[in-house]
């Protein structure tokens, strides 16, 4: 298979699941590398993926391939490349080695990165232009910022009149609508999300441009309109009732009091009135008799005459009801949307205050920069790289604005010639069937559109479909071929059909093997627990056929399903792990530590105390009566309780040490906390990180962040654990597992929840009040064609997303695939119904299961020996006493001495620069200039130093006749180093001079004598020694007699 025939400028690879997507993109990348004459083409190449894992995989694959080639190992890819580039094997090996070296030594330009980090780099490069600080941090989770911005607003109530009014009105509106919750915070946080969510950004940006005043007048208009419509309806109904009355057509003549019922209902403000009218209209249109059979012909005729009026009136009413509903719907979100621009600027403000940038604002910031700077190629230039070859992986996950940005960056590079007159190239790899990130802004339709368009980038793309499945074994490939081909007939929307009609059938690379099993559970009250038992059953089948726990993955839709399975597995002691669901908060040990912090901050809160006492009771294994233990300790301080139970921990430490120190100490002090436990040390890591990055400065700060993230912070995943992996399909994207179990495959395809939908008000109202957002319910879809269209689009998206989700799930398996469905939701468009329909033509086995292939029970599978060893940390952790051993006991230097110590050091330092009398003034001027001494000190030192130099006993040695060296080190063989303050010498004599600022001590003499001894030895001269005692106001010089002391 050769995917790269020539180096087309624009290549699109359609890569269904398992078709060797990474293989192709790596091969493509390598071909570009080898084709280039230089060995450094990689620094002109940019690979873009969506996840960190994909970056790692692509990088590793490229490097490993090069390494293989350089070791003369030529695989399939090597063959392809050789064909493509016209190399022989030796050349390939040689060039591989060179390139590999170059990459590893210029790794910084080996740019395979996620789209987020690319944008991050751009933003950093344009910090000044974007008015950002040079040292901002990136924040991934927007929650805290959003919460703070909402709080900020609410606090503004009473301060800012305009905002107060708006919010107050909003609350009233909620009361009038009898909404369950009056809290505004959530609504304001939602507004913030609109600003950050790509899917809403376009509308949000437009709305932000409308100022408060205008919004106000729009609101008045809408309310006015609303009143008008309501009055109109009242009027029409009243008139109509009158008319009917006049004609003698009273209510009793109608079956079920039709017409009357509706009109009176309208006047009485009944609920679900629209639906009632709709039904009535239908009845009228279907020309079903509304009057009772017993009604006289005369009256029937009268009624028939009225029907045209009735119809037109009812239509008017119905239309008005629609307008009323829409306007009321618009008004529900009016206030929060009015605050959009204010919230947005608060969000900006908070980001800049925290010196943080939300990752979700990346695209918008860059777009802003692009719009003012038409010369996009300098963007890359400024970052120091100039790219010619672009590789974008998982293109179907690109959002609209991401593609706009990428397009404009790439476009310029493609149009320019490279240094060696090559055109730039672009390679896109994607699969619209695997797009499952719509909710995050991904726009999979782009991938389909781009394939059709001929003039994008002024280039015609060359499109290749990768047809071979390298991942799954034969039966699995065949099952998927069968299933998704049949699925096309079951689909309800063109959009989804487009996704599934192309390039579905794959060839299996593995010509045999594989197993697929589909099981249907009977609908049952407690179906969830039946599912859980079934999952375990399937796991047992796999284990029996030779697989290990770690080969098995269970793919689910929601995190809560993952947790449910996890709980079941805990009961059954099945080794497993759940990605992102191993919450810190789930660990009792972490809970204990959190409880400790809470307790420190609220020492008198009894409910916290009792909670902690219960934990202590548990951990301490007390055999006394619980009640006794609790009531006895309830009024004691915890420091006392700890002490009584031989626990070292003391709450006072929180006042003296950092939070990390205290929590770590707690881990050592409470024997039941295991530092080797990943929950515990991840938790510690978190605190350490927050402290080191100065995001928290005390326990309270931490607790706040903890509470905001309690359901988010989780233990990071490590693939090497031997356990069943329970993962959401979203997380499993791009991965493969030997065995895959897909339970709960009976959900409805369409979402039941109402969606909020944007629409352009001008398409509906007479006055344009900008974009509006309404809750789209089933009712809304009955409002006419415009709304039906929206409804269709919503459903089409939901359908596509649902099947893509299923597609990704069923294509992860290598050897075995188990799908568990049930009879639930058989009556609606659901996975269970479709699966059942598709399988109709197949025969089930005796147990009612559908199978592809056969299962073989083996002892154990042959598997290649792992290169990488797994180890545990085994030693016994205990707290070291490093504080005692490694810190200077500074306490010996009492304060009283501090002043004079500084002075002494200063005198020595000054004198070390002074060789002769003239130096004194110069050196002291310098120190004064630097601000190290003040004027008084300067004068004082000059005076005293001059006295030294002029002192009769030593004056001579300070003169120019003697060479002087200050603070010169003297080396002694294998001993400490000596450093006399001053040595002056001429041909015959050597003089050691030492300055002392303290009181006279006996050991002073000994020190100088030692100096004299060695100086005599080195210089081989007669040696004299002096100690100069420098007091505050006095000066004395003492000559040391070497000879006398020597004895």
């Amino acid at each position, binding site marked *: 298979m050769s995917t790269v025939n020539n180096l087309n400028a624009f290549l699109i690879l359609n890569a269904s699941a398992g078709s060797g997507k990474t293989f192709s993109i790596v091969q493509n990348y390598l071909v570009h590398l080898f084709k280039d004459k230089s060995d450094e083409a990689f620094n002109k190449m940019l690979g873009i993926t969506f996840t*960190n894992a994909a970056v790692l995989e692509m990088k590793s694959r490229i490097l490993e391939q090069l390494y293989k080639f350089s070791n003369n190992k030529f695989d399939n890819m090597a063959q392809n490349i050789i064909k493509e580039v016209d190399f022989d094997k030796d050349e390939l090996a040689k060039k591989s080695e060179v390139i590999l070296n*170059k990459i590893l*030594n*210029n*790794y910084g*330009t080996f740019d395979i990165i996620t789209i987020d980090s690319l944008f991050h780099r751009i933003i950093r490069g344009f910090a*000044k232009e974007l008015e950002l600080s040079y040292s901002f941090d*990136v924040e*991934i989770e927007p929650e805290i910022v959003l919460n703070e911005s909402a709080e900020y607003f609410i606090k503004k109530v*009473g*301060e800012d009149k305009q905002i107060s009014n708006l919010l107050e009105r909003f609350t009233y509106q909620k*009361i009038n609508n*009898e909404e369950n919750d*009056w809290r505004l915070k959530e609504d304001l946080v939602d507004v913030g999300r609109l600003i950050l969510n790509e899917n809403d950004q376009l509308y949000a940006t437009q709305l932000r441009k409308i100022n408060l005043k205008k919004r106000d007048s729009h609101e008045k208009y809408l309310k006015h309109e609303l009143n008008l419509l309501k009055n109109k309806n009242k009027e029409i109904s009243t008139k109509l009732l009158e008319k009917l009355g006049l004609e003698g057509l009273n209510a009793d003549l109608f079956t079920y009091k039709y017409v009357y019922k509706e009109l009176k209902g309208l006047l009485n403000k009944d609920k679900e009135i629209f639906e009632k009218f709709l039904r009535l209209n239908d009845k009228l249109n279907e020309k079903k008799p509304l009057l009772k059979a017993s009604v006289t012909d005369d009256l029937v005729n009268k009624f028939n005459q009225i029907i045209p009026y009735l119809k037109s009136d009812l239509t008017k009413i119905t239309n008005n009801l629609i307008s009323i509903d829409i306007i009321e719907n618009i008004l529900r979100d009016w206030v929060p949307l009015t605050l959009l621009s204010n919230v947005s600027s608060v969000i900006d403000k908070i980001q800049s205050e925290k010196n943080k940038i939300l990752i979700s604002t990346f695209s918008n910031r860059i777009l802003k920069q692009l719009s003012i*700077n038409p010369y996009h190629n*300098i963007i890359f*230039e400024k*970052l*120091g790289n100039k790219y010619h070859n672009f590789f974008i992986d998982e293109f179907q996950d690109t959002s609209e604005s991401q593609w706009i940005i990428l397009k404009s960056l790439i476009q310029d590079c493609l149009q320019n010639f490279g240094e060696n007159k090559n055109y730039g190239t672009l390679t896109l790899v994607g699969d619209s069937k695997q797009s499952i990130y719509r909710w995050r802004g991904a726009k999979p339709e782009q991938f389909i559109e781009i394939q059709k368009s001929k003039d994008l980038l002024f280039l015609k793309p060359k499109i290749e479909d990768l047809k071979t499945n390298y991942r799954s074994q034969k039966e699995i490939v065949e099952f998927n071929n069968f299933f998704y081909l049949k699925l096309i007939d079951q689909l309800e929307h063109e959009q989804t059909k487009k996704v599934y009609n192309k390039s579905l059938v794959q060839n299996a690379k593995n010509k045999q093997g594989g197993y697929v099993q589909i099981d249907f559970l009977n609908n049952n009250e407690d179906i969830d627990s039946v599912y859980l038992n079934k999952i375990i059953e399937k796991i047992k089948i796999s284990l029996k056929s030779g697989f290990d726990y770690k080969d098995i993955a269970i793919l689910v839709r929601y995190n809560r399903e993952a947790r449910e399975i996890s709980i079941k597995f805990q009961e059954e002691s099945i080794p497993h*792990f759940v990605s992102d669901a191993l919450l810190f908060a789930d*660990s*009792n040990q972490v809970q204990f530590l959190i409880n400790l912090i809470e307790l420190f901050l609220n020492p008198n*809160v*009894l409910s916290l105390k*009792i909670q902690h006492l219960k*934990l202590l*009771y548990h951990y301490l294994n007390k055999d006394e*009566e619980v*009640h*006794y233990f609790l*009531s006895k300790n309830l009024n004691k301080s915890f420091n006392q309780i700890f002490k009584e139970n031989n626990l070292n921990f003391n709450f006072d430490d929180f*006042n003296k040490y950092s939070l*990390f*120190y205290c929590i*770590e100490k707690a881990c*050592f002090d409470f024997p039941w906390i295991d530092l080797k436990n*990943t929950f515990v*040390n991840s938790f510690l*890591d978190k605190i*350490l990180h927050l402290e*080191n990055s100065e995001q928290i400065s*005390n326990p309270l700060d931490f607790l706040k962040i903890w509470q905001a993230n309690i359901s988010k912070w989780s233990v990071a995943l*490590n693939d*090497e654990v031997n356990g069943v992996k329970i993962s959401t399909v979203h997380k499993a994207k791009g991965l493969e597992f030997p065995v895959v179990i897909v339970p709960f495959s009976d959900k409805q395809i369409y979402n039941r929840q109402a969606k909020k939908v944007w629409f352009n008000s001008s398409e509906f109202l007479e006055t344009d009040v900008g974009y509006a957002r309404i809750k789209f319910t089933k009712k809304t879809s009955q409002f006419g064609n415009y709304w039906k269209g929206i409804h269709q689009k919503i459903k089409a998206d939901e359908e596509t997303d649902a099947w893509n989700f299923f597609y990704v799930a069923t294509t992860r398996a290598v050897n075995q695939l188990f799908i568990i469905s049930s009879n639930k939701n058989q009556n609606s468009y659901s996975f269970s119904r479709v699966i059942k329909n598709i399988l109709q033509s197949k025969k089930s086995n005796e147990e009612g299961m559908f199978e592809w292939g056969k299962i073989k029970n083996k002892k154990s599978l042959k598997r290649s020996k792992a*290169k990488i060893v797994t*180890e*545990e*940390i*085994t030693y016994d952790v205990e707290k*070291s006493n490093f504080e005692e051993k*490694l*810190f*200077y006991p500074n*306490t010996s230097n009492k304060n009283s001495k501090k002043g004079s110590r500084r002075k002494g050091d200063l005198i020595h330092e000054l004198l070390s620069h002074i060789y002769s009398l003239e130096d004194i003034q110069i050196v002291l001027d310098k120190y004064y*200039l*630097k*601000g190290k001494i003040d004027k008084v000190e300067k004068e004082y030192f000059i005076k005293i130093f001059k006295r030294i130099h002029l002192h009769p006993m030593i004056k001579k040695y300070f003169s120019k006749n003697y060479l002087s060296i200050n603070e010169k080190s*003297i*080396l002694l*063989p294998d001993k400490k180093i000596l450093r006399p303050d001053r040595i002056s010498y001429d041909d015959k004599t050597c003089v050691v001079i030492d300055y002392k600022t303290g009181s006279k001590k006996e050991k002073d003499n000994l020190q100088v004598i030692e100096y004299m001894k060695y100086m005599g030895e080195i210089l081989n001269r007669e040696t004299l020694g002096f100690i100069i005692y420098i007091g505050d106001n006095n000066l004395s010089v003492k000559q040391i007699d070497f000879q006398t002391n020597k004895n």
Partner: protein
Amino acid sequence: MKTFLNECIARILKENKDLSKITVILPTQRLCSIFVSLLSKEINSPQFSPNIYSIRDFVSNLSDLSKASKTEEYLNLYKVYKEVFKNNATEDFENFIKWAPTLISDFNKIDSNMIDSKLIFKDLYEYQKMENLFENNSDGNDLGFWNLIDKLHQEFSKILLAKRIGTSGILYREAVKKFKNYIKNKNQFYYMIGFNALNNSEKLIFQTLLDTKQGSVLWDLDKYFFDKDSHSSAKFIKEYQREWNYYKKTPFIFNANNYTQNKRIISISTNTDYEQALKVSEITRNLSDNTVIVLGEEGILFPLLSNLKIADKKWNVTMGYKLTQLPIVRFFLAYFNLHSSSPNNNLKTIPLSQIIGSPFSKNLIFKNEIDKIENLNRILFSNFDEISFEKIKSLCNTEILLKVLHPKEDAFICIEDSISILNFIRKNKNLDEFNISVSEILLDTFEEMKIKSESNNFKIPKDALYYIMNELLKTKKLDFKGDKMNGIQIMGILQTRALDFENVIVTHVNEGTFPQSKRDESFLPFNLRKAYGIPTFLEKDSVNSYHFFRILQRAKNIFLLNNGSAGVGFLREKSRYIRQISFSKIPSHNFQEVIISQNIKKSVIKEPSINKTSEIIKKLKYISKNGFSATSLRKYLSNPIDFYSRYILEIPDYIPQTNTLNDMERGIIIHKTLEELYTPYLKKQMKIPYYDKILKKIKFTLHYYFKKYYGNKYDLTGENFLIISAYERAIRLFINKEKKLVIDNNRIFILDIEKDFKVNLNSKNEVFLKGKIDRLDKFNDVYRVIDYKTGYMNPDYLKYTSDFQRFKGDYKLHNQFQLLIYLLALKIDGEKVENFQAGVISLHSPLTTIIPLKNKSAPKNKGDNSLDPYILDEFHEFLKSVILEIFDKKKSFVSL
């Protein structure tokens, strides 16, 4: 193993008799003292030491300038900035400090590389002009900055030189000027040892010394790296070998070929950073003293130290212990922040709450003023941006509080006061030894700043003080004691320069740390830097690579730890160095990769169940006699252990303090308000004017009770304001609705409000039920028992059946239970409750008037809400059984 320094010493001793005639230049100060100690081991007789300088000291000596501190740099640049830009100098210090470090570092690069600053700044200006042109927003302001930047540079150098200080760049520039003269006059031979990447000044100095035969440069580079094509470690040295004149004549000598010797290299992937500390501790247990632990990130030092087996070995920690996270330091940072950022007599609440809210200040500074502090804290809670000092003063005026909070006139007073606050803390004698040491460092720092700020040359603008102190305190560290020469050394990678160890442990061998991430902070665009030969991230990478591989050269056992978890956020990738090693194909290297397995055991802790001791029974009897409330029984039913906590141990429910009224508090205000509003009409038939009077009183009454009960706790602003006005609105709607009913000729007669009851449930034993009924009235002919509710009430939860077991564990049915108790109590009291109606009035649905208690099986649309006569009897029996269970000694209080 012969270390590089030993090799150098051997060579020096071989080449020189008189050591006083030579000068040795080393990369760091620390190396100088190591070098001397090593040297003294190799000599036979006492002698003068050679002159040994770190390159920094050497340059400083040459230039005859001393290195300016960061503080001096910032303050002087700020001063110059104001002068040069005059009216255009719009940035205050807070903004200035955002870009100043980048600019100073650019200046340094330009100066130390001897680049013609005029030229490069001109090019920079042109570049910016071009960009601005493209951007079409040439408002000139921005460009002005780039135009004046050269002037800024010149004036900045001038002002520093006048004080005989300089940035490191200026020091280099001046050193080069004086260098030629300097070496002529000294009869010295120079050894430059252990250098790698040199700036242009260093290159000039080194080359001159080589060319004039007055020096040699001793490189520490293994032949392997030199020969290996394009190994980034060799980048610089190779360049010198290629380009320097000296090496064109003199061959480049390699002494070392160590890297390809036998080595054991283990790469260890951990799940967390903390695990790296654990693993290092484990590794060091079996290693000799000849070991270095290189910390990729300093943050891990603390966990490492607390896990090492300290007693077993000697240790030396090169890096100090960072102080910024200590509560005492945080306190002073907040203190400086407060006064730096508070211009007038107003104080910013954020730093203020950091000061008075922190446990440290509560326990160690304001211990005697704790009430006042709490009071103040509450007020801060509800205020937003600032608070006036006058207000604080009126609340608390003790000496120490005023010392801390009194607005300061200028930076000097602020520093002066910080000293007296610190002395106050120290006098309290609550500090432990560790914190005393820290306080001493703080005292030194503050005193030094005080002395400095007294002199005219060092005027600190008040708004700069926080940034200056923050910067300064970041650099302060508590030193460790240890032995540079012996014991396991713990250091950062930069400190390993020119040192060698048999065992090398490196942590954080991840991209981003090894090498550091390619964050290039500079105003000079990449291409401009390239053109002028100023290092970019590419050069930085090579420097990193050199340091990393150099420390491996002579090592025998190498442990490279990295964090292998796939966490959220930006990529955490194994370092390229690990790939380089694994791909390098050196046969004598024994390379292995290890992964630390995850330990994710979770234990399940069961709530203990409480046996009913005689003490508990006694308490229960007391409660029973006093009367069980509906709430207490509900609590027992929903979870017996909660009943135990609440009523046996008498632990109140914990409601965390926030700045908004919580549900309970809202309930109290609303109940009180409604009670007061209806009280005048007790036992009366409601008339329209009554409602009009009530309507007029709503707002006042609500506000009155808010103030009365919670006025000290909360301000009536923000969410509280909204809550109160929402309830006002809701009550208004509700009253209006009732008024409408009366207008429509319904009769409402208020029988009782807040009616207390206490009835005996079981006349044999004293089992009482007690409680309070919010309202009893007669609506037309129906007696109604009404419970007010401030929150939302789902009508479904008021549908009863005789299956009372549903009350167990299900808290949603609380209101239903309560209503049934009320009815039962009325019945026991002798009322004929059969024609009573019971229900909830929820202020969340004020238009619905009453949500009735009704039989679940009753037909949907029937207006009949009267009670099933038997239900209360059954309920009575049920309650009796519950009471029996509560008293049953065999049944412990368990958690459901």
